[in-house]
Structure formats: structure tokens, C-alpha cells
């Protein structure tokens, strides 16, 4: 299974950096799950929880108040 490179960063500290199976983010018009090789996208995010599914089945969640998602070249960047 192909994995997705995910970077979540906050100004004062990097929150998450690594390969994941999928990530679910609170988009402006509802929840959105991003898998590997998703098409290039830029989207603002609203407050909610980012759910990260790792390769080994573990889950991790990060709560945010706002943010921006950018995805290109199988690399997703979320700025919160």
C-alpha cells in the first residue's frame, strides 16, 4: 500500500512529520479524507480534529481551530 507524506506544522513547533496511510481533515464543506496520490489541492480548513491513520493501524488526532491544507507530489502539508 502506498503511503502519504504528511507534515503538520504550527509556527512554534512541528506537530507531525511522517508517512501515513490516510489523513482526515475538517474541510470548509465537510470532512475530507486524503489518501496517497491524491490530486493536487489547496483548501482552507475550519476548526475540528485532524485524524491521522498510520500504517500500523494506530490512530493519532490533532485538534485545530483553523488551517490550510496543501497537497502536491504525494506530500500533504497542513499549516495550523
Amino acid at each position, binding site marked *: 500500500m502506498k503511503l502519504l507524506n504528511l507534515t503538520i506544522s504550527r509556527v512554534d513547533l*512541528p506537530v507531525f512529520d511522517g508517512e501515513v496511510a490516510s489523513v482526515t481533515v475538517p474541510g470548509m*464543506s465537510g470532512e475530507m479524507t486524503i489518501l496517497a496520490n491524491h490530486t493536487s489541492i489547496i483548501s482552507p480548513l475550519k476548526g475540528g480534529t485532524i485524524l491521522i491513520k498510520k500504517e500500523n493501524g494506530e490512530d493519532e488526532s490533532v485538534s485545530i481551530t483553523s488551517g490550510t491544507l496543501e497537497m*502536491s507530489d504525494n506530500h500533504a502539508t497542513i499549516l495550523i
Partner: protein
Amino acid sequence: MALKQVKNKIIATKKTGQVTKAMEAVSAVKMRKSQERAFVGRPYVRSALNILSRLSASQDGLSHPFAEVRPEGKHLLVMVTSDKGLAGSVNSAVQKRVDEIIAAGDSVEILAIGRKAVEYAVRENVTLVGDYINVADGVSLVEVTSMADKVLSLYESPKYQKVSIIYQNFLSTFEQVPTLRTVLPLNPDEIKLMMDGIKPKSGKWSEIENSVGTPTDYLVEPSSEEVLNTLIPQLVAIIIYHALLESKASEHSARMVAMKNATDKSKELIKSLTIKYNKARQAAITAEVSEITAGVEAMGS
């Protein structure tokens, strides 16, 4: 008596030396902390700017009122300085740059961050649209957001042609340069310039490469304008936050160097004063001895 005066001067110089030495030590610690903070923020700023530069290169580019060039109006300058002095030329270098801008004929209004900037605006009779003093070393994002909101709400009026920010960019402990960057209207070239600037000259963060990916056509969800509506305030806040961190790192580095120079100078001064003191003391002793011998000789004959 000269002897007593010199002795007092030595004591005074010693005390000053102790103070500057303590300030040097404090600044060294603060410098390390703020350098670290400035460096930690850099990857974030880089990726945020990356998103914007890619967005501007794709599809219809940046179509947003905040990205349009305005033909004329006032120049809003966000001036970032420190609150306290005794830090070498960090603040005066920024002030000199502002002097140049005003001399060039721009009609400038200042949003001051730091007490020295406020004092400058008052002294030079420049319109002050807002001031923020006593910004802590560990700048909180909340504080920065309020500054950014202020800038954005001011720029909504067509009175202003552009908004730029001037601050001390931290290159190394011994080198800081006053840097002027245009914040609004958003300009991809200026953003690229800023991205190149966000790279220390040396040290563990300097190797991180600065690649702007090839502009791909993005799916922009829900619309380009919607994205820019959230991204622009975020970016303005980031630019200000970044400028604040750089300015803090510069301030503490400059103060540490200035205090080190002061401590060295005080040591030098103590040395030369001690020599002067010993000479005066010896002269007094010699004079006394010769008086006594002269007296003995007079009695003996």
C-alpha cells in the same frame, strides 16, 4: 587628593564592569532561546509562502483585492524595534532606513512595535496608527493575530497604497541587517525574495534547501478567493510573527556583543587606572622619604 580620586574611579569602573558582565550573560541565554525560536518558525514560514507562491503560479493567479497593485496612497510601515536600548546599533539601523524612506518622499504612517519605534515616530512627527510595546520574548500567536488584524483592517481602506514591514533580520550573532519587505499587496516575487531571506548564513539550519516546486495545477477547494480569504490573514500574521522573532534574536545578539565590548573596555580601563594609581602612590612615598631624609640630614649637620 588625586590618589583618592583615582581609587574611587577604579571602584566605579569595576562596578560598571560587573553590571555589563551580568547583562552579557543574561543576553547570551536570551539570545540562544530566541535564536532557537526563530529557527523553529522558519520551516513553517517557508511552507506557508510556498503554498502562496504555487497558488499564484496556478490557474487564474492571485485574484483578490489584497493582491491588486494600488496606484497611489500612503505607505503604512510596520516598524519593529526593541523596547530597551543598550543593544548596539540594532534600533538605530532600522531608524536610519525609515529616515531614508521618508526622505525619498513617501507619505509614511507608522504602526510601531517596540518602544523605540514609538519614540521614533513621536520624535520625527510621523503619524502613529498603532503601537505595541512590551512584546514578550516568547511572542504568542494571539498577540500577533491582533497586530495582523489591525494591519488588514487598515489596508481595507483605499487610503493606503502598500504595507511594508521593517525589522532586523538575523544572519548570525555578529551580523544583522535591517530588512524592508512589502506585506500588502501580495506579490509573488516579493514572497520569493522573503523565502530566500529565511535562511541563516551558517549553522545547523542553513543546509535546508529552498526549493519552490514546479507550479502544478491545483484543485482549489472551494474557490481561489475563499482560499485567499483565509490564507492572506494567516500569511500576514506569519510575516509579522517571523519579523518579531528575527528582531528579538537580533536584539539579544547585538546586546550581548555590545555588553561584551563594554566589559572588555572596562577591564582595559581598570588596568590603566591601576597603573596610574600605583604611580601616584609611589610618587607620594618617594616625596615623603625624601622629605624625611632631608630632615635627618639637616639635623645631623
